């Protein structure tokens, strides 16, 4: 197992290296001057020297990688001049984290409940209603949901503030109230994904041979479902739920921009549009790290939840 984890981590490091290399060059392809027009020539020259922009691209890359390996990730150029990029990122994380955690608290139980209801009542009105909702939620993009919520609930009905309330203190009642719409907009897609998985897995489990045996043992339909079918259908659900937990750190660019939330997502869009090279690369690095780690955690958690892999795995691997 340890050998396997080490192998996976090495592969992850390599992947991350490739990602930051590609993003280093790709971001230079964006047209426009980092330093802005009209600044005076001396200042420009000083800035170019500070950020090594006067050297050839390859040399810049070598310097960048060297610094990166010594955990010097560079400074923000335009958005937050001279501040180390990870300080900027760390400042943005709490708000994104709060929004995403609220969204998860809604998403997971709702998704599981809808999935169970649909599987137990398969091919009835309940199932059809839930399945229609799933198709709708999966296919309508989140910015459409966000805009619709904003337009109807905030603008037309005036129930909620249109944008996130930033004047109110962090986590105050007023601010939490203004978080309702973005949290809802963040949740729809996740609910649909979990519902779809849960329905399929539970339905399969319900028609399995071990359910027949559980019933033959004398368990009622309810007991057999809870003790055997649900347990079994939760295992593949790890595949979707674990990445959701991991991704609470990464903000949604679309939803954060629409509701004017100064989180990681809007920092990302901001840094790209101002050609803030090092900040963009650092955010991409954080996002990639989160995603790669969650894939690894999913694979490992499978081994923890499923005894067939936990105990049986050792025999088959190498």
């Amino acid at each position, binding site marked *: 197992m340890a050998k396997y984890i080490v192998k996976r981590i090495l592969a992850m490091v390599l992947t991350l290296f490739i990602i930051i290399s590609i993003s280093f060059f790709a971001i230079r392809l964006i047209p426009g001057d980092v330093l802005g027009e009209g600044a005076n020539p001396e200042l420009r020259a000083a800035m170019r020297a500070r950020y090594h922009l006067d050297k050839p691209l390859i040399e810049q890359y070598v310097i960048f990688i060297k610094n990166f390996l010594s955990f010097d990730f560079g400074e923000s150029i335009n958005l937050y001049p001279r501040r180390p990029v990870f300080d900027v990122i760390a400042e943005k994380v709490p708000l994104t984290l709060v929004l995403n955690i609220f969204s998860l608290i809604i998403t997971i139980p709702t998704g599981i409940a809808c999935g169970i209801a649909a599987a137990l009542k398969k091919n009835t009105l309940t199932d059809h209603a839930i399945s229609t909702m799933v198709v709708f939620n999966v296919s309508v993009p989140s910015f459409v949901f966000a805009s619709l919520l904003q337009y109807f609930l905030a603008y037309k009905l005036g129930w909620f503030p249109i944008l996130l309330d930033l004047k109110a203190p962090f986590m105050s009642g007023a601010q939490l109230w203004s978080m309702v719409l973005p949290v809802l907009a963040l949740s729809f897609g996740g609910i649909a994904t979990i519902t779809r998985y849960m329905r399929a897995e539970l339905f399969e489990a319900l028609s*399995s*041979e*071990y359910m*027949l*045996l*559980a*019933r*033959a*043992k*004398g*368990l*009622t*339909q309810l*007991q057999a479902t809870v*003790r*055997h079918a649900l*347990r*079994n259908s939760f*295992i593949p659900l790890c595949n979707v739920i674990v990445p959701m937990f991991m991704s609470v750190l990464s903000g949604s660019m679309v939803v954060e921009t629409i509701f004017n939330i100064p989180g990681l997502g809007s920092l990302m869009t901001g840094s790209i549009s101002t050609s803030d090279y090092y900040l963009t690369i650092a955010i991409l690095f954080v996002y990639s790290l989160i995603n790669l780690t969650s894939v690894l955690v999913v694979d490992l958690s499978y081994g923890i939840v*499923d*005894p*067939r892999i936990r*105990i*049986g795995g050792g025999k088959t691997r190498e």
Partner: protein
Amino acid sequence: MNEYQKGERILDVQDLELGFNTYAGQVQALRGVSFHLNKGETLAIVGESGSGKSVTIKTVTKLLAPNAVIKGGSITYKGQDILNMTDKQFSQLRGSEISVIFQDPLSSLDPVMKIGKQITETLRIKLKMPREQAKARALELMAAVGIPEPEKRFDEFPFQFSGGMRQRIVIAIALACNPEVLICDEPTTALDVTIQSQILELIGELQRKNDLSVIFITHDLGVVANVADRVCVMYAGKIVETGTVEEIFYDPRHPYTWSLLTSMPSLATSAEDKLTVIPGSLPNMVHPPKGDAFAARNRFAMKIDFEEEPPMFKISDTHYAATWLEHPDAPKIGIPEPLKSRIAAQLAREV
């Protein structure tokens, strides 16, 4: 507890009629099935695939698919009407009085639950047995069904067991609550021949020890000859002949039973011999044919077979057959040739 004496009728199924609703129409799966089970005996139900054996069992244990419709008949267990019980009421009987073993031991255990827990589950839930006592009982059961080192195996998972071992566990689960009736639905079809005979021996041994009444579903006549006291032959949702095992094997009356027996290879069958097959296949049960359902495949069919269903003709107190050949006016055909000589040879060997 055992107010029922050996040989008394413990389970009685009368005129059971059942259909499955499908898009193509209603499949007439059972068309008036009647049989009974006596305390302490083994009743075998035989027939080809699709004849309604498993459906009969699932009706008796109330484990039918939701599209099944019971159209008539009655099932009585120790004087209680099973058919009209709710799922909750019957859950009290299922597993504790009437237990079932299904065909596929490889997939019938919960893959993510420890073996021990699967055995103790019913003891804990239904008999409210304390944990330690339930574990002791489970270890006892595992030893009884021939699992070596039960202490160690108790905490293992199904995938760590072989097919034969899994079927032993399934049997242990079925016996956990000391049932009176054990129903085995082709318990050995998924296993290889050596394991098969071990499992059959095990069931027989447990039956003698616990005074079980056993219903044995199979399409393997060799198994029937070994384990059964009485036999029901099923065809197209009906029992066409029933009798003691001697009556069915040495004095079969129904042409379908003849065909079944003839198509079974015997010790005298050499590798060059072609096995006899029954021509055709089961009729479409959405629209069951008029008359005797077997008539189209029966080379002894008479005109009346295509017009009217034969009633059960009594041959002896235990032996009945549903064929017009038993009618007093019917021509006396007798058992057809290859089978007749085979039975004679068999009888000669046994004397």
